[in-house]
């Protein structure tokens, strides 16, 4: 997986003057990564770091140990299920409503105050209230994750739609396209590059909330596992858990990028107006 290249491709069309060859990019990425890891390991081996901060090698070993024990496989399933379900529900609704709000003042106004008031409320603080409704179950966790994943997608999709060149919509109206069709065939593609920035943030938030919700109530999963390890002072297992969560996030993100590229985002510059 190419890192910077895909990072760029996903977000926006690339238009650098100093376009670098793929190999060069790869070389720099690898070199810098290796350098940082080596420095970290060096510090760890030199004993400069406190005891509870592990070096990369130690963490890798702990990760392998956790994977061997079978705990990892058992924890990953439920965690991914929660994070991804919440993410899909939250970001899909967020993107849809956001685009609607972007092109319809009625929707925008309707959600406006509500959005700014409910967004900063720590959703995890609402968990007890939700748990009363749905129990200390996966349903509650997924709901909390979905609510949290909603906002970044919503905001970015809305702003993406707001940035559309109005004349493109004029074209659609002229052609006699129904609002539904204009929405899906003009607003959606034009706003997609920006909306995807939000979807990326939503994915990140989903994983944060996955860990946070697994700490509340009784739960299994990676978050619960790493918190348990932390409580027991087993830092190795804790770091292994963190690595596992990170890997899940990375893979999910990579899939998201592939899907985005499959949808053709990044081949054109979107419909944002520039004069």
């Amino acid at each position, binding site marked *: 997986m190419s890192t910077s290249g895909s990072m760029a491709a996903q977000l926006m069309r690339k238009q650098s003057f100093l376009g670098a060859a793929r190999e060069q990019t790869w070389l720099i990425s690898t070199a810098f990564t290796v350098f940082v890891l080596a420095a970290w390991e060096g510090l760890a081996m030199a004993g400069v770091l406190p005891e*509870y901060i592990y070096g990369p090698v130690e963490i890798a070993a702990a990760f392998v140990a956790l994977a061997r024990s079978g705990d990892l496989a058992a924890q990953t399933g439920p965690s991914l299920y929660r994070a991804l379900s919440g993410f899909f529900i939250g970001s899909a609704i967020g993107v849809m409503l956001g685009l609607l709000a972007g092109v319809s003042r009625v929707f925008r106004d309707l959600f406006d105050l509500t959005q700014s008031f409910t967004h900063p409320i720590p959703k995890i603080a609402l968990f007890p209230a939700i748990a009363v409704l749905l*129990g*200390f179950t996966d349903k509650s966790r997924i709901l909390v994750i979905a609510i949290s994943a909603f906002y970044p997608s919503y905001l970015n999709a809305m702003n993406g739609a707001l940035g559309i060149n109005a004349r493109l919509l004029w074209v659609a109206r002229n052609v006699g396209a129904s609002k539904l069709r204009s929405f899906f065939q003009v607003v959606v593609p034009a706003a997609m590059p920006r909306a995807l920035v939000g979807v990326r943030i939503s994915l990140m938030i989903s994983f944060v909330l996955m860990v946070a919700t697994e700490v509340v*109530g009784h739960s299994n999963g990676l978050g619960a596992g790493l918190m348990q390890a932390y*409580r*027991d*002072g087993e830092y190795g297992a804790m770091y292994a858990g963190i690595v596992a969560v990170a890997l899940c996030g990375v893979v999910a993100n990579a899939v998201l990028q592939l899907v985005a590229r499959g949808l053709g985002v990044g081949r054109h510059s979107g419909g944002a107006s520039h004069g």
Partner: protein
Amino acid sequence: AGANADACAAVDLSAAPAKPVPIRYGTTGGGEEPLALLWADKAAYPNNGKFYSLEVTEFTSTDRMTAFQAGQIDAGTISFPALVTAVHVGIDARAVAALIQVNKEDNEGAFAALDSSNIRDIKDFKGKKVGYYGPNTISEYWVKSALRRAGMKPNDVSFVSLPPPAQEQALRNGQIDVAWLARQFLFKATSTGGVQTIMTPFEATGGQNQPSLLIFFSPKFIQANPQAYCAWRKDYQQALSNWSANREAAYPKLIAAKYVTPFSAKAGADGGRSEGGVIPLAELDATMKDMAAARFMPPAMVQPAAKLVMPGYSLVK
């Protein structure tokens, strides 16, 4: 039959129902070894799966009462201050048995400071940062009680809320001056060295025996399922005596059930258990009085201990 008569004596435990009654139980995850034996060593407690089946869920402290109020658990573990507060605000939960008892032999944990610090007793706490488990937890009460006894005020120290495992590190890093270390953490800290015990809860409260952790049930549940409850209670008392008799034999089973880690098993004997799980009401009353005096608890919350327990079905003395 009166409040003092044991209602379980009248419950027939000879014939089991067709299906065991599920008891949804919320644990905290620390210091509940005798209780954990009920599922860790299931073979020894045949009533589990016959009269009742224990469905255990682990919660953080406030979540547990949320789940209880939402009707998602029937019973659970509760600290003494939480029980008082819960009953005071009208939550329908009543204590039925004691789980951890603060007494002379108790080694559930202690307040500790670094050897290198000059903190040696409660008088040295003035202006210091003291680690505790959070507001309205029993660790807060112990400090405040000791402060009162030393003629000091509650705000002579600043409290720092920390999860149990973080306390030792915070102490060693100088982020707090005094840590509350639960048994396995105290064991770990003292075996590493450089840390010394300042006072145990028993000392902090001026030698007062008191249950610090209790088991509560929903009275409605007990009334609806007396047989399941009494069968459970019998098992629990059995487990307590087994635990007291031979902890070394119990540990491997608890480890296998993942209730404790091999390391915390090494922390060894606890001793802080009340005989037969019985709740001494007089101790509760005395402790509540001390809580109010230490300005840990508003006087309005002080209530007769008998109100905190389930009449008839509780193990009380």
